[in-house]
């Protein structure tokens, strides 16, 4: 195992060396960073030219200069990594360390949502192969697959930001919108779920009525100006979460798991006011982290207290459901700052911005206002990236799930008389996750350097922007810095994916075939 990993890392270093050498020389051959200065008529240009040549060491031939650059990289062993200077004499290292967190913030949310949504839809469509739902999802995922991201971005800016902000300007949802929205939702669900015309009408009417009543209720309590969940909704939501998570995780017939989750739902509701009081006194990321840890600890304790013989599954169920319940309280607190956020400088009652990564005029030091600001700025890019990338996961997980469902062990599981939940969640779902986990790792590494267009459309300053700037101004060191980060991540991810595959699937042995 160790021999295999060290051999792989050796090969990996050779590959990185080769591709960076190639790119360095290609790029330095293909353009001249001094061109604009040489052609300039400005009397100072000559001096600047000499300075640039000196700073970037341009008199040294590129292949030799590459090794000087490489020497700076090797500083990683002494703790002084040096990627060289950009054309503007900034250190590439500091540019990179500024850009990476931004890119991470941009892509993390969308990657998670796309993965969860994609997996869920993919698995449901595989279970309901050739149903109407399957056709609808397949069509939409192909459609999303075929959209250029900047096209989606422009549409989102228009409809999700500008028009939605206009809409928020009115205090009430218009009756036409309520009718239209309810009708469309009802038609969608009726069309998707129903199998015969009787059910179709039932679902149509049911969804319509529920939707209509819900939106009217929102209007009646002026929810849009002052959104919040409140203890009652949190209690109902937590009970729903308890039942839902238990049904998926252990099955409702596991009474102790259900009971433990319901206890946690009660605890969440009882602690609603105390937690809000804590938030009023101190709010920071640290407090939230501590509260999350406390939640997990309580959930483990409750789970262990109520479990009879199956501690593992009960504790798992309780922890998952109580974290979601904690999330509800967090969302509720965030919503409470909505009204105040709307009146901030730079927001002016139009909360969904079309560009930028944060509001430069925002002067509040309140944790929740700042969180809300970051959140609203992340909405549009996240939705755009999610729409583009979830389609791939839907297709892939559907295909894998179908293949798994045709395996002999699924038939064995059914023949043993296991119920359908166990067959799907324990036998099929887990085996579907094996190939998916490996492509997820590779995708996540690729996404760091791949958000070039999204960053440009939404005016963020991450890795993509750096790369763009590097290409345009022939900034060799900057380009190499960006390339080095993305390339290292991508080869490492491939290695991790291979190792993960062997860890998850005992049938595969690494290095055995060689």
């Amino acid at each position, binding site marked *: 195992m160790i021999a295999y990993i060290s051999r792989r890392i050796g*090969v990996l270093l*050779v*590959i*990185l060396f*080769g*591709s960076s050498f190639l*790119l360095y020389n*290609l*790029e330095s051959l*293909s*353009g001249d960073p001094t061109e604009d200065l040489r052609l300039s008529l400005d009397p100072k240009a000559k001096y600047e030219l000499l300075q640039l040549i000196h700073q970037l060491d341009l008199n040294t031939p590129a292949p030799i200069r590459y090794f000087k650059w490489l020497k700076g990289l090797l500083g990683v062993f002494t703790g002084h990594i040096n990627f060289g200077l950009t054309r503007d004499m900034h250190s590439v290292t500091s540019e990179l360390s500024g850009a990476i967190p931004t890119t991470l913030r941009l892509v993390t949310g969308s990657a998670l949502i796309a993965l969860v949504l994609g997996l869920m839809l993919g698995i*449901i469509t595989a*279970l*309901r*192969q*050739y149903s109407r739902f399957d056709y609808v999802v397949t*069509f939409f995922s*192909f*459609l999303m*697959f*075929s*959209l*250029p*991201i*900047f*096209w989606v971005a*422009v549409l989102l800016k*228009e409809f999700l930001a*500008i028009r939605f902000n206009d809409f928020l300007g009115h205090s009430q949802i218009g009756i036409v919108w309520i009718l239209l929205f309810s009708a469309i939702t009802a038609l969608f669900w009726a069309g998707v*779920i129903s199998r015969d015309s009787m059910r179709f009408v039932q679902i149509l009417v049911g969804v319509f009525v529920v939707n209509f009543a819900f939106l009217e209720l929102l209007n009646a309590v002026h929810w849009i100006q002052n959104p919040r969940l409140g203890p009652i909704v949190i209690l109902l939501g937590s009970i729903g979460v308890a039942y839902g998570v238990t049904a998926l995780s252990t099955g409702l017939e596991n009474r102790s798991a259900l009971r433990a989750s319901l206890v946690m739902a009660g605890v969440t509701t009882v602690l609603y006011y105390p937690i809000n009081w804590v938030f009023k006194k101190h709010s920071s990321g640290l407090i939230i982290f501590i509260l999350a840890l406390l939640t997990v600890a309580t959930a483990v304790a409750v789970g262990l207290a109520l479990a009879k013989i199956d501690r593992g599954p009960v504790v798992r169920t309780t922890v998952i459901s109580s974290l979601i319940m904690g999330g509800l309280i967090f969302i509720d607190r965030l919503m409470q700052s909505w009204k105040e956020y709307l009146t901030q400088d730079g927001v002016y009652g139009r909360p969904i911005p079309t560009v930028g990564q944060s509001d430069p005029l925002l002067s509040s030091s309140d944790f929740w206002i700042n969180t809300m600001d970051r959140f609203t700025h992340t909405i549009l890019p996240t939705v755009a990236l999610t729409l583009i990338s979830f389609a791939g996961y839907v297709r892939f997980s559907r295909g894998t799930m*179908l*293949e798994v469902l*045709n395996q002999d062990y699924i*038939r064995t599981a*059914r023949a043993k008389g296991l*119920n*359908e*939940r166990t067959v*799907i969640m324990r036998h099929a779902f887990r085996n579907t996750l094996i190939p998916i986990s490996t492509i997820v790792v590779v995708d996540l590494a*690729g996404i760091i*350097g*791949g958000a*070039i*267009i999204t960053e*440009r459309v939404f005016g963020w300053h991450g890795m993509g922007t750096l*790369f*763009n700037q590097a*290409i*345009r101004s022939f900034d060799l060191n900057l380009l190499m810095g960006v*390339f080095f980060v*993305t*390339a290292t991540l*991508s*080869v490492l991810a*491939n290695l991790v994916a291979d190792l993960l595959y062997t860890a998850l699937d005992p049938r595969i042995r690494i290095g055995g075939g060689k």
Partner: protein
Amino acid sequence: MIFRRKKDTALETTGENAIANLEVAGLSQRQIVLKRFVHHRAAMISLFTLIFAITFVFSALDNTIFFIHYSGWWHYSFTDTPELLVCKNGAIGCPTISLNPFSGQFGLGDHPFGQDNIGHDYFALVMRGAQRSLLVTFIIGAIAGTIGTVVGAIAGFYRGVVDNILMRFVDFLITIPSIIIGSVVGYHFGNLGITFLAFYLGLFAWTGLSRLVRGEFLSLREREFVDAARVAGASNRRIIFKHILPNAVGVIIVSVTLLMSSAILLETALSYLGFGVIAPDVSLGLLISNYQDAFTTRPWLFWYPGLFIVTIALTINFIGDGLRDAFDPRQRRRITKKDRQEATRIKRERESLS
């Protein structure tokens, strides 16, 4: 709802298999694939739409393909600058297309998609852009398909040192994200014209395909028919091209289609970043990126090129999906009422014969 018990799954499966087996009895591999593909409704609709779109787009304007010059049916070229028309509501260059048969001006009009800032006919621009985008797609597909197949076939067939060298080379190319390669290539070679750009992009786009083909060859070369061919004295070249390649053609075709649909988006993205097609030539990506800010005032400048990109990419994706289903014998097709009737008919005929 998801976990509904399927009591008769086993029974159903055998029933479906029986029907599927009856359906393909007595047909060659190629006929089976063709039959399955023709039955894939979405793929067939997409195929016809794509063929129609290609003919429509390429016949619209004067053009030269392989040194043959022909004139198109549209009365403007993409370089003409007719007078900029002002329409009723005061906007400039709005579309004259009218699909309402009762409005009195039903038809295309002089500028069906409107005009751009200088007065270029936007229909001609979109046609030209779609031509460029299609051209890029097919060139990348052809070049990357050929290189990927050959490299994958050689690596998978010869294994050992050859395989190691080729696959390390692939690893090496894969470290560089395609959009980075595209940008570097596009920025420095973009002025050589779009054909060169597509050619260079194709030179880098084959890596994923070659891995797939290699995997396919690795498993196929162990099969009995390859041993049989070798015993019969066939050369390596003959075994690769006559025996193994036809069996791997499904994987190749499917991934080339998917490659092409991502190629059109890559070209669009590069043009958007300014690394792709350069004015005065146009591509769909360039049109959209030029007019993204015009969305609120003159949305047609944004909608029409987008519509063409989506149509082309969507149809190619659906065709790829249909081909995948057709080539993969493990995929169960939906058994319709018609299929059941057909199966019973065949069964009865057989029984009456025996």
